[in-house]
């Protein structure tokens, strides 16, 4: 029988290893799997390469993972936001690496990995510093750069609801990077607000087919990151 449900976030992230590449869904806090990230902090894997659009805010979630010195390198499009100080501080001190990728290129490189495409061409970043050292090619009199797929060992994704096959639906703009990250990792680990019976998700409306998901943990009432930040909370909990 197929049953991808696991009992706890702790159990879900147990095999993430030192040096792994881990994708983390979310655009700012929307879609960020904060309970899975906190479980990864408890678990302690380090020298991680994290692929995520941002670098977290305050001292919880992704920012806390970085603050806890578990991250060797960030691959992201926008590593600073209103309340992010952890990554900027470490970056200025030279204690964390950054690969800056335009947001659409980040998305497409992840999608390419999931779709078995090793590389593709795009106009994005041509004639900018981010195209330095990238291979250029002309198609139909326009210049494009070659971009490579980004694969991951693990993806940590937040969704709205899931079933035991791993079929997922999302909530509004919290969908963002979740569906493509599910496709790009060897092991995709999901936190869902609700677990539904098979068939309760309309087959026309499934966003992530279960084939892309390995484990699902129910987190019925996920933390609100901006509230935690406003309250100056830090993880591990202060």
């Amino acid at each position, binding site marked *: *029988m197929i049953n991808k449900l696991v009992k706890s976030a702790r159990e879900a992230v147990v095999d993430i290893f030192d040096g792994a590449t881990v994708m983390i869904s979310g655009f700012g806090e929307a879609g960020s799997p904060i309970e899975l990230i906190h479980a990864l902090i408890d678990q302690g894997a380090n020298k991680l390469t994290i692929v995520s659009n941002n670098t977290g805010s305050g001292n919880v979630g992704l920012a806390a993972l970085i603050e806890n010195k578990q991250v060797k390198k960030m691959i992201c499009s926008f590593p600073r936001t209103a309340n992010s100080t952890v990554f900027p501080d470490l970056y200025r001190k030279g204690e964390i690496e950054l690969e800056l990728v335009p947001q659409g290129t980040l998305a497409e490189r992840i999608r390419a990995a999931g779709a078995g495409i090793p590389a593709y061409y795009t106009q994005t970043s041509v004639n900018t510093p981010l195209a330095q050292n990238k291979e250029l090619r002309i198609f139909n009199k326009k210049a494009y750069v070659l971009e490579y797929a980004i694969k991951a060992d693990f993806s940590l994704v937040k969704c709205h609801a899931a079933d035991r096959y791993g079929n997922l639906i999302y909530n509004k703009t919290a969908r963002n990077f979740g569906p493509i990250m599910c*496709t790009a990792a060897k092991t995709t680990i999901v936190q869902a607000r609700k677990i539904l019976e098979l068939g309760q998700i309309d087959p026309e409306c499934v966003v992530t087919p279960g084939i892309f998901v390995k484990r699902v943990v129910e987190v019925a009432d996920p933390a609100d990151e901006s509230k935690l930040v406003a309250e100056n909370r830090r993880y591990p909990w202060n």
Partner: protein
Amino acid sequence: MAQKVAMDIHDGAYVNLGIGMPELVADFIPEGREVIYHTENGLLGMGKAPQPGCEDPELINAGKKCVTAIPGACYFHHADSFTMIRGGHIDVCVLGALQISEEGDLANWSTGEPGAVPAVGGAMDLVAGVQTIFVITQHCMKNGQAKIVKQCTYPLTGKNVVNRIYSNLAIIDVIEKKLFVRELARGVTFGYLQKNTDAKLFKNSGEQL
């Protein structure tokens, strides 16, 4: 043969079954195993044939036959469907064959005859992307000619792609570009098998037949 294939499909596998004989595999999955069928025209969780009168011409499989969808199924478009295939997410694909070479090359889409209308469908994508490729085939052609050959003479579907061959005479593994006999059909001897095979066969011990 279909039953033998079915025995080798593990619980929880995501499986794409080719048109024709491979479709029969679904009927033989042992009880207690849950297997999810993918059809490349946009359905994961394909169920059995519909009851007569309940056919929906908009719910079909890759062979364009009417099918059903199980609870927990989902629909998606062609680019997403081939993301599953090309991206290595499907565990097993079962296909038919015109020829298989001793290195695991597969020819199953064209006899290359002049005047024939070539048609490839999803076969090249499947053999390139799916992790394990099972071939289910009569051991020889109707005229007795070998299908398992040193080198395919028909146009290839893919090179070094077949993992295991299920024929009416034997089950044969392709390992490091060599053919190892895994199981003989009842009453078939190694000698008889080799006689009906143009490629070199090895016993599992490594000994050449």
